[in-house]
């Protein structure tokens, strides 16, 4: 009754192809964004900002990047961690060498650098498909982490091997990076940056470039007959994806942990982001956000659950059980809705259209 499209007719193709064609959706999303931008920074407790919202935004960007490559273009990649590390270390070297350059520009340049690395490791995709490609991307993952660990040049020969991200400012004296930056500034900065990149992603996905990606994913042989050049489509997917993942890695180091270390970007990170897009929904922009939220919130929930339920458990036991429950939830999720939270959301909206009627 409330969520009806009745009366909303589209008189032009432009209106039909809008990102949010249903008026309720458009209003809802804009309100949510306004709320997130204006109200949340002031009312959210520090813990929420630091440990939930900031990593959520960063992971959403990484998930977005991986979704473009794996969800939209069908190229399975397990190298996400390695590309995040690229973004982090490129940003570090650039900003230490050129401290006056605006940090946003630094991030964008680091993203471009990661895009080039991504294209390089994406070249095998021209010959290899499916799981075999996943192995090639694993080669990228292991090699990149080894390289960043091995060569002291990346950490400017720091004796401890761990370097802290320097504080940088945007628009005058608004510090957004480094451990000294206030979380509210970091949060707003991230919100704006991630939303902007998500908008670009959505535009790409509904344009020609996105369609050629999806054509490659669905049937790359048929795509060739249409005139799509598989090389161009696949490498552009790798490039765009690595760009976003690289920036997310830089943000991880600069605005979340405050330190740049290769260990944070190991194979577990790659799997984590892959889980996000599978659970959130492959081939869905919104799904990337939902999956990121799920993976960020789940461990916190699991850690607090025994306390809430009043069951005393040792820390070791909790970490073991967390593994079991995490694995069990993944299996459960994949059985119940293999297309992820985004599909569940769509089904929910379908039901909402009819509510309160049953059918």
């Amino acid at each position, binding site marked *: 009754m409330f969520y009806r499209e009745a009366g909303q007719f589209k008189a032009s193709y432009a209106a039909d192809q809008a990102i949010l064609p249903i008026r309720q959706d458009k209003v809802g999303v804009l309100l949510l964004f306004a709320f997130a931008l204006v109200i949340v920074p002031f009312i959210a407790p520090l813990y929420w900002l630091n440990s939930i919202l900031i990593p959520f935004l960063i992971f959403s960007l990484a998930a977005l990047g991986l979704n473009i490559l794996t969800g939209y273009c069908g190229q399975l990649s397990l190298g996400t961690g390695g590309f995040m590390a690229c973004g982090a270390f490129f940003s570090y070297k650039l900003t230490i060498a050129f401290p006056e350059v605006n940090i946003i520009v630094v991030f964008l340049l680091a993203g471009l650098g990661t895009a080039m690395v991504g294209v390089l490791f994406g070249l095998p995709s021209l010959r290899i498909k499916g799981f075999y490609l996943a192995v090639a991307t694993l080669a990228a993952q292991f090699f990149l982490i080894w390289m960043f660990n091995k060569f002291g040049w990346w950490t400017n020969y720091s004796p401890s091997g761990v370097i802290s991200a320097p504080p940088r400012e945007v628009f005058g004296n608004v510090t957004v990076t480094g451990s000294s930056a206030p979380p509210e500034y970091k949060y707003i900065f991230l919100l704006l940056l991630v939303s902007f990149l998500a908008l670009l992603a959505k535009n790409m996905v*509904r344009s020609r470039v996105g*369609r050629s990606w*999806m*054509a490659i994913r669905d*049937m790359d042989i048929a795509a060739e*007959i249409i*005139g*799509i050049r598989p090389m161009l489509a696949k490498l552009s997917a790798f490039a765009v994806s690595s760009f976003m993942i690289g920036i997310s890695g830089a943000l991880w180091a600069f605005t979340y942990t405050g330190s740049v270390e290769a260990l944070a970007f190991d194979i577990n990170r790659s799997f984590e982001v892959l889980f996000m897009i599978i659970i959130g929904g492959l081939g869905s922009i919104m799904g990337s956000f939902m999956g990121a939220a799920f993976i960020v919130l789940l461990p916190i929930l699991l850690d607090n659950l025994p306390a809430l339920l009043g069951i005393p458990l040792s820390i070791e036991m909790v970490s073991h059980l967390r593994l079991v429950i995490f694995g069990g939830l993944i299996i459960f999720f994949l059985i119940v809705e293999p297309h992820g939270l985004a599909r569940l959301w769509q089904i929910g909206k379908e039901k909402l259209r009819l509510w309160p009627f049953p059918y």
Partner: protein
Amino acid sequence: MNQTAPSEMAEKDPKAPPERSFGEPMLTVDNISLSFGGVKALTNISFNILEHEIRAIIGPNGAGKTSMLNVINGFYHPQEGTITYKGNVRRAMRPHMAAAQGIARTFQNVALFKGMSTLDNIMTGRLLKMHNVRAPETGVWGLDHVLSFGAGALDFVTQCLYWGPNEKEEIRQRTYCEEIIDFLEIQDIRKTPVGRLPYGLQKRVELARALAMEPELLLLDEPMAGMNVEEKEDMSRFVLDVNDEFGMTIALIEHDMGVVMDISDRVVVLDYGRKLADGTPDEVRSDQGVIDAYLGVAH
């Protein structure tokens, strides 16, 4: 009645089909031989397809008909022989070259993008014709490459920003695709993911996607397979309309003899990778070799 004046004859026989005129040979295959390992799929096949005609390729299963189309398309590269398309002689085609030069194709087992909607599938057919930013052609070799690279990059940026030249182009192409949708009467399924459509409709969407490429030569691989009488009549009508209105040259593989005899101008018969007969439907129908091969009992 023995002798009647031509004008009277025309009046007396209004159902006589209008004169069809064909142009030069658009595609000629000469002595094409194709083998996979030890299996010879095609042996010394030569025939041509004239502009504006509807050419049928028929033969029993396994005769090599789909392989022939795959050679024309560029999926398979023949070991011997040449393909002459629009005057250019080639040893082999490449799929995206074929697409760029105006060859479009449908498949026996519908090759649609199952994850996308009908409209999106048809829009992918427009890919080669869509440009947000056009590079000027200067004719200078190196400069042209640089300009087209720059145009490509700028094009990508406009897609990221969507509103502006990209949206205009999208709407322009959408309008074109909607005309095709109207033509093939598939308006009510335009937003449905094609994976959910019944087989007959999927074949129609595939035809729509091929038409969206604005081809000069349309290759149809068993477009009427698995359809009932009504659907076959609809599809035949579409094929004839496409040939009539757009002047498109059509090569089609088909098993239904009624359809073949009705709509095609000339027929090529293949059997075990060799050419058995080549001529008008009537000539082929009365060829003893063809009858022996498989036209035994009436459908």
